């Protein structure tokens, strides 16, 4: 029978330990894992990018309930372990007792809260977990929000930069004379301070907090010297303490942390401990690299191997974009120590090496940190540097002042120098991944995990990949449309036209695709290019479309679909509404939502019900709204001249005409329109791909707006006098975009590439060209303006909606 392993803590160390353990053997233990936070393990290091809005929580999850379930681990998120009974070998939580044969403690650390009056007020928080980040984000939404961050160390500054990026007015209160005094010397601390001040963050060094002010809620911070700083919230980031109260109460030996030996065992032979909660050979830890090593060692020992943990020298970086700093080792001044310093004031570069007995023992760098790993390696190796001392500070690349090749620095690194600190990946590891077949940055990342944790080594990893692959390397952005080809989107489009390539296999054959059948990135793009280039001739390849466009509905998180019938120009009728209501009843639609596109969304439809539901909607005269399409979406309108006292033209009527003309068209990305009856702009035409504002004298045509991930205001394409002109110009613009833009680029991206002037020239200044574009558009519409729902309601693509066989009767034997 399997032994029982209980794990306390769902953090970075335990997650890594579980990976090592389960990869090696998932049968030896029945595992139960407790985590105090109401969620699975996530990459805690990346909380700062989540705070600043550069990443979402979903992107930093490492092990969620699904992962544990698929590995047979019973995970108890949100359940705090309150006691360990070592005699009966059980752990105690609110839901009862859980027995163990082996126990792994990975409870991390707790933020230290300075004991000043007011520390319990609402709005005082630490910076440790996602709950803290969410609380901070909530405060940042207030009008004119202000924050005080107490502590100018690594965490405090990341919090300050994140809050400032969220629009808060931030003041950092730091007790010591300069920032990050544990990692930086005075000069580097000063450079960092000026950079942060340039971004509008106030920094008060040598400032001691006396009191946090406020009634129930924080209103400000009072300093010893009498200064008062108003604040809506206060973040305490003054340090962490190993969190081992639980272990302590059960009688395990401790000092500053829970004591472990080289095998990561506590003084109870059945109990292991790893992470920030432990003390090993007199040291405690606050960075992940050594914790990952501990995790591996503990996993091995739990499997019966004998492996020992050996702490290695680690370096620190600050994850604030634009503040490049690097620090490692001991850089305090002391007798017998010498230093080498390099400064470039204009560029804000500062480098300092601390030398003892001809060996580097400390490195501090600011502004240019490329050589950091090279110095760190010399420090780790305790290499005698007396021979190269004169040029040492210029790094591996020193060539008598000649211009530096950025790749030369990476080239000069020895193979064992560490590139990715978080994951312990050396230059040699990356080179061997490439020798084992990794042919791109993405593949190097997949094979080694380099630059996938905190991301600060992405530049180095990229350079090293470029260097090792040599000519075989293409930077992801500029180059090939995907890993199957080095040709860019534009190249491929050109070849499709020039060589008259009319099917996906033809393109792949002719352009020497590197994979047998393409990939999920290139196939949808190729399919679109062919649809756009050869209307009427090309046979659409459904299997190369994303599921939404394949089944003409939006897939939902639970695998059901949503259905949005078209309502031309946002107009509907009682009959249409009745038909929608009937369909909602008949197919048990759980939610009906009025969309932001002036129509109605039926959410949560079972896939197999789609064709029948569409038949019903068709019968009431409705067609697909293409709410899922890289194609024409909605035309929003306002009520216009018919009803509104300010309306200048029939905006609703024009909207309906436009939508009737354009629906069914496919494009590189979605295409949204709106028509407003006057400059009050109630239909929000100024943030659409194509917007029209009616004025007394005619119609202002606006292009290149968006209100999604980027917020873009439209720019004026031109003004026309009649509805017919507006329609022709719109069709011509849509066609120009369809023919030229790269797949998945909205019009604003494409206009930024080709220039608005060029677009104006093509559409406004050249009537012949405009007419030709509009003709090509309507020619294409003669094939594509068909209702995909009707085709499927009549039995088309039935394989999508019906199972191929029913084996529910095959019973368990």
């Amino acid at each position, binding site marked *: 029978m399997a032994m029982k392993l209980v794990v306390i803590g769902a953090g970075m160390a335990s997650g890594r330990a579980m990976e090592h353990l389960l990869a090696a053997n998932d049968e030896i233990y029945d595992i139960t894992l407790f985590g105090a936070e109401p969620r699975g393990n996530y990459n805690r290091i990346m909380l700062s990018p989540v705070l600043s809005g550069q990443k979402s929580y979903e992107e930093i999850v490492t092990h969620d309930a699904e992962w544990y379930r698929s590995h047979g681990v019973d995970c108890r998120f949100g359940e705090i372990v309150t006691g360990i009974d070592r005699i009966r070998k059980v752990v105690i939580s609110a839901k009862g007792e859980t027995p163990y044969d082996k126990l792994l403690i990975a409870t991390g650390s707790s933020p230290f809260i300075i004991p000043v009056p007011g520390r319990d007020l609402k709005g005082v928080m630490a910076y440790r977990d996602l709950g803290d980040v969410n609380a901070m984000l909530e405060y940042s939404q207030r009008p004119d929000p202000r924050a005080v961050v107490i502590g100018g160390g690594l965490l405090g500054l990341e919090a300050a930069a994140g809050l400032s990026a969220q629009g808060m007015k931030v003041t950092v209160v730091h007790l010591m004379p300069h920032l990050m005094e544990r990692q930086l010397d005075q000069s580097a601390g000063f450079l960092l301070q000026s950079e942060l001040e340039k971004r509008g963050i106030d920094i008060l060094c040598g400032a001691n907090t006396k009191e946090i002010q406020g009634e129930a809620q924080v209103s400000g911070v009072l300093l010893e010297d009498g200064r008062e700083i108003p604040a809506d919230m206060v973040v305490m980031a003054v340090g962490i303490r190993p969190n081992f109260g639980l272990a302590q109460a059960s009688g395990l030996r401790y000092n500053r942390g829970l004591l472990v030996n080289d095998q990561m065992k506590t003084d109870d032979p059945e109990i292991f401990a790893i992470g920030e909660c432990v003390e090993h050979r007199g040291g405690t830890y606050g960075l992940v690299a050594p914790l990952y090593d501990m995790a591996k060692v503990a996993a091995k020992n739990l499997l019966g191997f004998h492996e020992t943990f050996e702490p290695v020298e680690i370096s620190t970086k600050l994850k604030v974009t634009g503040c490049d700093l690097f620090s490692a080792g001991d850089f305090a001044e002391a007798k017998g120590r010498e230093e080498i310093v390099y400064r470039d004031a204009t560029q804000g570069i500062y480098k300092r090496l601390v030398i003892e007995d001809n060996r580097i023992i400390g490195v501090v760098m600011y502004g240019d940190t490329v050589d950091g790993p090279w110095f760190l390696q010399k420090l780790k190796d305790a290499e005698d540097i007396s021979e190269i001392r004169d040029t040492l500070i210029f790094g591996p690349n020193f060539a008598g002042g000649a211009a530096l090749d950025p790749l030369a620095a990476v080239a000069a690194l020895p193979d064992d120098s560490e590139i990715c600190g978080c994951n312990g990946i050396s230059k040699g590891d990356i080179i061997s991944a490439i020798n084992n077949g990794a042919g791109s940055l993405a593949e190097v990342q997949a094979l080694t995990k380099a630059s996938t944790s905190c991301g600060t080594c992405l530049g180095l990893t990229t350079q090293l990949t470029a260097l090792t692959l040599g000519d075989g390397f293409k930077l992801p952005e500029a180059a090939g449309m995907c890993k199957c080809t080095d040709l860019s989107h534009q190249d491929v489009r050109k070849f499709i036209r020039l060589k008259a390539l009319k099917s996906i296999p033809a393109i792949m054959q002719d352009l020497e695709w590197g994979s047998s*059948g393409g990939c*999920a990135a290139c196939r949808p793009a190729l399919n679109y290019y062919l649809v756009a280039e050869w209307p009427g001739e090309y046979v659409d390849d459904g299997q190369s479309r994303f599921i939404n466009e394949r089944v003409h509905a939006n897939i939902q998180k639970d695998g059901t679909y949503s259905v949005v019938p078209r309502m031309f120009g946002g107009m509907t009728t009682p009959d249409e509404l009745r038909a929608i209501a009937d369909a909602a009843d008949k197919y048990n639609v759980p939610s009906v939502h009025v969309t932001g596109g002036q129509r109605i969304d039926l959410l949560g439809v079972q896939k197999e019900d789609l064709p029948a539901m569409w038949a019903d909607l068709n019968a009431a005269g409705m067609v697909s709204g293409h709410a899922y399409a890289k194609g024409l979406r909605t035309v929003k309108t306002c009520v216009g001249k018919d009803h509104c006292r300010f309306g200048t033209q029939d905006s609703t009527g024009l909207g309906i005409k436009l939508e009737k003309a354009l629906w069914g068209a496919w494009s590189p990305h979605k295409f949204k329109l709106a028509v407003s009856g006057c400059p009050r702009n109630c239909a929000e035409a100024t943030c659409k791909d194509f917007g029209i504002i009616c004025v007394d004298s005619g119609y202002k045509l606006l292009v290149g707006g968006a209100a999604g991930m980027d917020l873009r205001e439209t720019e004026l394409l031109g003004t026309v006098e009649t509805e017919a002109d507006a329609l022709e110009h719109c069709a011509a613009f849509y066609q120009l975009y369809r023919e030229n833009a790269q797949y998945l680029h909205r019009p604003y991206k494409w206009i930024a590439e080709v220039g608005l002037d060029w677009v104006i020239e093509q559409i406004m200044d050249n009537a012949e060209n405009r007419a030709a574009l509009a003709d090509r558009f309507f020619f294409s519409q003669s094939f594509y303006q068909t209702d995909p729902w009707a085709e499927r309601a009549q039995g088309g693509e039935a394989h999508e909606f019906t199972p191929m066989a029913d*084996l529910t009767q095959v*019973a368990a034997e």
Partner: protein
Amino acid sequence: MSNFIDIGALGDIPQQGARLVKTAAGCIAIFRTVEDKVFALDDKCPHKGGPLSNGIQHGEAVTCPLHNWVFDLNTGVAAGVDVGQVQTYPVKVENGRVLIDKNSIATKAAAA
């Protein structure tokens, strides 16, 4: 011992596509590659349950429609840094017919 049963014709499945087989313990997705190889996997992504049959099939892999994890159809193992595995089932094609191992389906039903 395996015990193959007929679930339909190869031609019932589109190339680079998938069809479903219903079982007492959830659906199994039957994939057909561009080279007419056939694979069977649970129609449930280990990440957040995405229906893999609705993904884009390429090479001998499928990309989940919900968050783009990529699974090797041979092993059901997630590619790259994503960690997860989908249950696979023995299938084969004989004389244009697709056959699946009945015992493995019975085992699946029993486990449910």
